[in-house]
């Protein structure tokens, strides 16, 4: 698969982000559309809370655009729960054709990529892409009970409580999706579920180096290179892998997992992770930078670790995927 240049750039006409209290307390806290003080969003279970976050994120994105759900042709949604229930239950109130996606933490970019292609193909004119993750639902499904006491590994990351929604369209105002590069699944043998940054970095480096090779461009030709949730650990690995591929990315490369929390004050070890991490940082921070003219172009790379608690228990190593979208002002 080679780099796809859209016939006509697809516009990101609206976006919204909903987060929990730790994300609100972070450096980007003021940029999010809504935050909840106890991470429950008025619900009785964490799973319901995450579904509610998706509903709120899409509602806010629709309201900002000034449309109701009839204006949207399809919604692509995903999360980290078994069978993507946060998405299906959360988006139940909307009368929009629904497609559930699973790309682990790469789902935010997977949704943007697929939506852009379908709009470019002409069958759809407006598609919403919504993803979420919740720290408590992820802890329950992937790690330990919430009140279980343990020391966390230095490479471990903190699953972001957040939902992000973007609405893509064949016209209108907003940042433009210009180029796309779908990722290949990649497994370089990391099998520690507390070290996902290292497990995902090879997929991200593969996608990014292919992009540069095929387009004949260099890291300096783009405003920012942003990965989804490699965290501080994955950032180091990514820089080294890109160096081995012959590219120096240190000048303009960053990762959403490094931006969302204040590492000095918060005990988050290697940074943030989860579908919500790249989704809310892109929807609140980077889209604003693009739309307000502080950033010309960016490569957004969604990174996903494709393991389940079952494969981890069976000792399999962790495959990963990374999708790339070039978004310009």
């Amino acid at each position, binding site marked *: 698969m080679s780099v796809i240049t859209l016939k006509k750039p697809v516009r990101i006409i609206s976006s919204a982000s909903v987060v929990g209290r730790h994300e609100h307390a972070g450096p980007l806290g003021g940029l999010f559309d809504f935050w909840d003080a106890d991470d429950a969003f008025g619900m*009785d*279970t964490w*799973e319901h809370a995450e579904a509610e976050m998706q509903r709120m994120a899409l509602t806010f994105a629709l309201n900002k655009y000034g449309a109701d759900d009839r204006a949207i042709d399809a919604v692509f949604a995903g999360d980290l729960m078994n069978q993507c229930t946060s998405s299906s239950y959360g988006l139940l109130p909307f009368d929009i054709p629904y497609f559930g996606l699973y790309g682990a933490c790469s789902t935010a970019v997977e949704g943007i990529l697929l939506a852009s292609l379908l709009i470019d193909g002409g069958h759809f004119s407006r598609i919403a892409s919504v993803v979420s993750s919740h720290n408590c639902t992820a802890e*329950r499904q992937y790690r*330990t*009970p*919430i*009140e*279980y*006491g*343990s*020391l*966390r*590994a*230095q*490479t471990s990351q903190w699953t972001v409580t957040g939902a992000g929604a973007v609405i893509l369209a064949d016209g209108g105002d907003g940042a433009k999706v210009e180029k796309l590069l779908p990722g290949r699944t*990649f497994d*370089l*043998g*990391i099998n520690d579920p507390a*070290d996902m940054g*290292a497990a995902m970095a*090879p997929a991200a*480096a*593969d996608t990014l*180096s292919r992009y540069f090779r095929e387009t004949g461009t260099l890291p300096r030709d783009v405003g920012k290179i942003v990965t989804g949730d490699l965290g501080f*650990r994955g950032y*180091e*690995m990514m820089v*080294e*892998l890109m160096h*081995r*591929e012959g590219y120096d990315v240190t000048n303009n490369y960053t990762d959403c997992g490094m931006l969302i929390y204040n590492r000095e004050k918060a*005990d988050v070890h*290697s940074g943030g992770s989860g579908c919500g991490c790249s989704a809310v940082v892109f929807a609140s921070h980077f889209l604003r930078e693009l739309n307000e003219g502080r950033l010309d172009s960016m490569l957004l790379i969604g990174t996903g670790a494709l393991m389940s608690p079952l494969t981890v228990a069976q000792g399999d190593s962790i495959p990963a995927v990374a999708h790339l979208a070039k978004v310009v002002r």
Partner: protein
Amino acid sequence: MKTTKEEYKKLAKDNTPRSPVLRDCVFAFLFGGAICSVGQALLGLFKALGAEEETAKTLVPCTLIFITVWLTGFGIFDRIARYAGAGTLVPITGFANAVVSPAIDNKAEGWVPGVGTKIFSVAGPVILFGTLASVVWGVVYYVMTCVMK
């Protein structure tokens, strides 16, 4: 991709941020030692209150479990354990926390399939392998006593 699986595994291993082993061990020693000393104090207290030696020895772990269960309920235990590490894990407190935390966590899935099964998620293996080892030892001990006679 120019980096092979073997090269990458080595790269990832060599660059793994080190755990602060010394700090972790100091905390584990202090918290673990303190919990055991509390147990010792409780033992003295129960004896002073007139309990027999065996009863007092049984009451000590029960009391530590009782305290841990409530600390877990109030959301305090996991905050201590984040620093104490093995210091709270290895004493009977770690077992108690492993029993109650999944029980609280799985209320929404119902009393039987949720709480009832998940309460054993960590305690189950401990009881299983402990019982297994003790039965094996019991049989060996029986054979030994027969041979001795």
